[in-house]
């Protein structure tokens, strides 16, 4: 009897608290749904978030400069050309490096800037997602893995950069570039015709 009250109370209190056990967690990103938010610093130490890009069209490119699939698109100038085309069309282009410290593709801010200069790349910013939080929020699986977000913050494309999953630069000429197609669909005010494809490349080195 003596213990009855505290016990009841503890049970009740735990019961009340158990509500907190059900948390808000972001599920796998879905095309047509709001793109997951993120908060990641770029090579200049500035923090980028999706919330801060409201009203802008955004392209996310997961990258790892040592991955042969990434090399295919940079050595051929294919990625740089796409970056210039996109930023000229008003897109914010964020290259994201989710390689963990010590893993392939992990770079310091200065190294990342050098890579951008050396390759003549033209992203709006290079984000250093060393913790992999942003990569996991987007379920980024490969490098490259591409995402296109419309001005309302809705994810409209996720997947591969094109339909030729090889490391051969010769394949770029005949490939359908899904990002370019998505940009064309958005510009024409149409829904993106091919919203999800298989991303191809090396695994993201979380």
């Amino acid at each position, binding site marked *: 009897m003596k213990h009855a009250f505290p016990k009841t109370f503890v049970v009740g209190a735990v*019961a009340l608290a158990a509500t*907190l*056990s*059900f*948390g808000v*967690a*972001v599920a796998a990103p879905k095309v047509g749904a709001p793109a997951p938010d993120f908060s990641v610093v770029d090579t200049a130490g500035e923090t980028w978030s999706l919330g801060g890009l409201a009203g802008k069209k955004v392209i996310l490119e997961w990258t790892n400069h040592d991955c*042969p699939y990434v090399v295919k698109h940079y050595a051929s100038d294919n990625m740089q050309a796409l970056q210039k085309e996109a930023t000229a069309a008003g897109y914010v282009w964020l290259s994201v490096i989710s390689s963990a410290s010590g893993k392939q593709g992990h770079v310091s801010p200065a190294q990342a800037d050098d890579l951008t200069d050396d390759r003549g790349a033209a992203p709006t910013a290079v984000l250093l997602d060393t913790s992999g939080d942003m990569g996991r929020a987007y379920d980024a699986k*490969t490098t490259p893995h591409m995402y296109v977000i419309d001005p309302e913050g809705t994810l409209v494309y996720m997947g591969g950069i094109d339909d030729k999953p090889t490391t051969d630069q010769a394949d770029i000429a005949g490939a359908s570039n899904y990002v370019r197609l998505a940009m064309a669909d958005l510009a024409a005010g149409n829904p993106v015709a091919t919203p999800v494809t298989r991303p191809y490349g090396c695994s993201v*080195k979380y």
Partner: protein
Amino acid sequence: MMLQSTETPASILQRRSACRGSFQTGIVLLGLSLFWPGLVPANPVTTENVTARLVAERMEVAPGDTLDLALVFEIRPGWHTYWRNPGDSGDPPRIHWSLPEGVEAGPLRWPRPEVIPVGPLANYGYSERAVHLVALSVPAEWPIGEPVHIRADVDWLVCEEECIPESGRFDLTLPTGAAVGPGPIDPLQADVFAAARAGLPDGRIEGAVLGVTDALLGLVIPSDGLPEEIDGAWFFAGEWGLIEHAAEQPWRLADGLLRIDLSPGAMSDEASPEGLLVIADAGGEVRSYEVAAVRGPLPGAMAPDGPIELPLAFLFALLGGLILNLMPCVFPILAMKALSLINGLSGQGPEAARERVLHGLAYTAGVLLFFAVLAMLLLALRAGGAAVGWGFQLQYPPFVVFMAYVFFVIGLSLAGAVTIGSRLMSLGGARTGSGTAGAFGTGALAALVAAPCTAPFMGAALGYAVTLSWPLALAIMLTLGFGLALPFLLLSLVPRLARLLPKPGAWMETLKQALAFPMFAAAAWLVWVLSVQTGSAGVALVLGGLVLLAFGLWLRERTRGLHSARRRWVLAATSAALVGALYLGVATDRLAAPTLSEGEQSASGLASEPYSPERLAAARDERRPVFVNMTAAWCITCLVNERVALSTADLARSFSDAGVLYLKGDWTNRDPAITAYLADHGRNGVPLYVFYPPDGEPQVLPQILTRDMVLSAIRSSTSGSSGRDG
């Protein structure tokens, strides 16, 4: 035709001899081939990571016959090549043939792959050696004695964690024999071909069905073609996008059907529902079967998924709702309502009876409306892509503050410190005849304070509900609400029941005042919750808010009956205090959650390892008992359980005595591996405690955990039999 087909091999021979003409060039090219292995034919091709060769099973082939070739990769230890669906990354080998006219090569065949975890991702591929068989057919009109020269250009990707694309050009010359039928077997290659055939699918299973529910894909396969005792099952999706490759695949056998639960991938609706089923039988032998499933509703008894079935979920919901009436956070409000009913009984006659019924119905409507709104909100958020669980509203600190205010003010009112306007009073049920609007409000209030209490009892049912289609999910939530409303509804509908309640008297005032304390306790608890969510700054804000609130209410109470002009100033001051308190509450949203220090996390004194599916599987293979604790920093129940149930010294001792591996999964931030694990257990939230005895079925422990539950689970597993009856 004949001319052409005899000409072609000859011209190839010429080219080959031209190539051999310059010995030096050959050496230089051979040297280069180490770097550009595609340039010059070689067989085998040796790269840094792979030795690849193209070999024939037989030493000669007869025109009109078929023979098997094997593309063999000997892979550097720790490195991998890939299956036809490589999984989350990677690429399968591709082959491009240059064949004489009329000679045809079939597709590459794919032996059974393995799952290769790469961090949170998974690949399907091969370690050490991959052998791909290809059937080659030689036309009947091929001249006997004329060798068949074939060339294959192969590109493959080989990865450890890093990936290297490699390629090779393979030339192979096959003598043709006069004999009818297959030529003699090449004894040097016999082992390779035997091993390769052992890895090919053992058969094809018809009649499999792939059914979609909101959260899962269920693959149901007739088990008559499968081994009788199944020890393990895995489905390799044949195409990217059908399933999450890294997710666990819980399976079960029942009624002649094998069911595997799969996590849907990014294109689960579009991707072809075919793949390879790999089965390990009780003897440890592994077999594989091609499966081409048909999409459709899951057959018969397999249709309801999740750990509990639909009628049971409704029953739990109703029971859970009934139990809510007894929760400390709901009971005072209901007790007050019941007291008002007792008072109401003093009024006899049809008029009073009608009022009681109206009250009961309005109260029920209030409860149901609140639950419906909450359920809709939950379902809308879920549809929007956020995975939320019941009680999600308390994730938002200002809501916690608001709830603390509500409990505090109700407490003050019950204790008699303040009198709140007649409308709010009727929420407490202190007066009768305050109208059906009051009863409706009481219902909504009861539901508001009850919602936080539902989780521990309703975890399973609600976890199940959110995986259902929305009408069913809504129905379950409403059943829960109906359970909450039921006792009061019965009291108001059946006057005879109400008469069983004790007679009104002075005890009612005492009870009412005493009931203030559970309210204060709930408020105190919420302040503590907030301290965990936002740290001491949040506590300062909410305490300041409570003082403001108390001051405003006191001011209002003291100046009751003052002249109306002055009263207006007082009311303005009261409103200002209220607004100030709410502002302080909203301000808590901007405070970052304090990170729990490592010391606090490991206060349990139990050594834990981070959860990963591989670690769990490895320990299970060693027949080591495992205790899995899925937790999160924002999960207060988890922390309470860790303090109350998992931090005692004797528990640590019995863990080490029994050799229990303690795996802790931290779900503070999204982690697909843990989300998948929770989904496997039919949950959409933490805490989740699962004990795996050395052998036998894993046992899910309750969300409100005590030390004794954990101890008895461990003991029953070590003291013998199955460990099921804890």
